[in-house]
C-alpha cells in the first residue's frame, strides 16, 4: 500500500528523466522489470505537465531525490526516447517514478490482456472497444500511466457496465466519486490538497465525499478499515 504513499501531490509526478535517488522499483516477483541502478529508466524531456515540485513545498530532510536531471554516464535514461527500442521502453513500465507508480504501457497489449481475461479472442477486437478509439487515436505507448488509479478506474467501471448501458449521470457520478476518493487518499486526507490535485473546489470534493458517505474522512477510513489514512 505504499506505491504512492508519498506522492500525493501532482508535483511529485515527474516524468521521464528525473529518476529520484529514492525510487524503488515496485518489487513484485511477477514482473521482470529493471532494477534500480541498472540504468533502464527511460528519459523523456521533463514536460511542464509532468510538474516540477512546487516551490512552496519544501523537501523533507530525508528526501534525497535529485532536484534536477543530471545525466550520469551509466544512466541511459539520458538518451532520447527515439533511441530506445520498444521492448526497452516497455521495460521501464516497471519503474516507479517519483512516489506514484507511473508505468509505460502499450494499449494494444493491455487490450489483448483484457480480452484474454474475459475469455474473448485476444487478437480480435470486441465491437465495444471501438468506442475508445473513435474520435481519439490511442497512442502506441501510453507513457507514465498512473497504474493504481487506472486499475481503480477499471474496477469502478465493472458495476457501471453491468446490465444496461450506463447513463451519462451514472458515468459522471462514478468518475467524480472515484477522483474525489483518489485525491483524498493521495492527499492523506487533506481536502484542500486533494482539491488542488484534481483541480476542483473543496466544496465539490466535500459534496462527493458526503454522497459516498466518506465524510468526515477520518471516520470513514476507520469505518472502512483503513486505519492509516496517511498511506
Amino acid at each position, binding site marked *: *500500500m505504499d506505491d504512492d504513499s508519498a506522492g500525493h501531490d501532482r508535483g511529485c*509526478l515527474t516524468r521521464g528523466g528525473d529518476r529520484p535517488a529514492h525510487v524503488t522499483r515496485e518489487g513484485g516477483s*511477477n514482473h521482470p522489470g529493471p532494477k534500480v541502478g541498472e540504468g533502464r529508466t527511460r528519459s523523456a524531456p521533463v514536460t511542464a505537465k509532468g510538474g516540477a515540485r512546487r516551490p512552496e513545498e519544501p523537501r523533507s530532510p530525508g528526501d534525497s531525490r535529485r532536484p534536477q536531471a543530471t545525466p550520469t554516464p551509466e544512466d541511459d535514461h539520458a538518451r532520447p526516447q527515439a533511441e530506445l527500442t520498444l521492448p526497452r521502453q516497455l521495460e521501464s513500465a516497471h519503474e516507479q517514478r517519483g512516489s506514484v507508480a507511473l508505468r509505460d504501457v502499450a494499449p494494444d497489449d493491455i487490450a489483448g490482456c483484457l480480452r484474454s481475461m474475459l475469455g474473448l479472442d485476444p487478437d480480435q477486437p470486441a465491437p*465495444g472497444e471501438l468506442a475508445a478509439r473513435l474520435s481519439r487515436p490511442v497512442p502506441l505507448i501510453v507513457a507514465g500511466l498512473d497504474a493504481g*488509479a487506472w*486499475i481503480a478506474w477499471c*474496477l469502478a467501471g465493472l458495476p*457501471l457496465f453491468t446490465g444496461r*448501458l450506463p447513463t451519462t449521470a451514472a458515468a459522471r457520478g462514478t468518475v467524480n466519486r472515484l477522483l474525489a476518493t483518489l485525491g483524498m487518499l493521495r492527499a492523506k486526507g487533506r481536502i484542500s490538497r486533494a482539491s488542488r490535485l484534481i483541480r476542483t473546489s473543496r466544496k465539490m470534493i466535500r459534496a462527493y465525499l458526503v454522497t459516498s*458517505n466518506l465524510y468526515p474522512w477520518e471516520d470513514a477510513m476507520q469505518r472502512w478499515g483503513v486505519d492509516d489514512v496517511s498511506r
Partner: protein
Amino acid sequence: MSAGETRETSVAAVALMLRAAVGARLDRAGVGELAASLGRALPPMTDAFDSAGWIGWCLAGLAVFEHGPPTSRIAVREAIRIVAVLTMLRTAGNLTHAARQLGTSRRSLRERLVSLGCYPWSEFLASCESRPHAAWRPPAARE
C-alpha cells in the same frame, strides 16, 4: 440494437489480472486502486456485465491517467465521451434511442457529439474508417 456480450467475472480476479497487465504487485492493492472500493464496496461477483464496453472503458482510461492523476473535468469528459460513443455504436447511430439509453435529451446528446467531433454520426464513422489509425471498423461494416 446489438447487445454487448455479457459474462460473469469475479471482481477480485479482474483486479489481479489488471495488476498483472500493468506489472504491479499482485499481492497487494495500491492506494490508487483502493479508491475504487472506498465508499462503495464492489460486489464480489459481477454477473452479466458488458465485457466489450468495459474493455473500451478501460482503454479510454489509459489516456485519462497518462502522466498521473487527471483533473476531474478531463476525467468526466472522457467518461462521458466513451459512454456516449459506445451508446451511439450500440444503437446504430439512432440519436433518439441513444439519448433514451443515456438518460439525456436528443438535443444535449447532439450538442455533446458535436463538441466531441462525432456529429453527424454517419460522416464521423466514415471519416474514422478512412484514417490510418482506425484499424477497427464499425461492427456493422465489419459484418
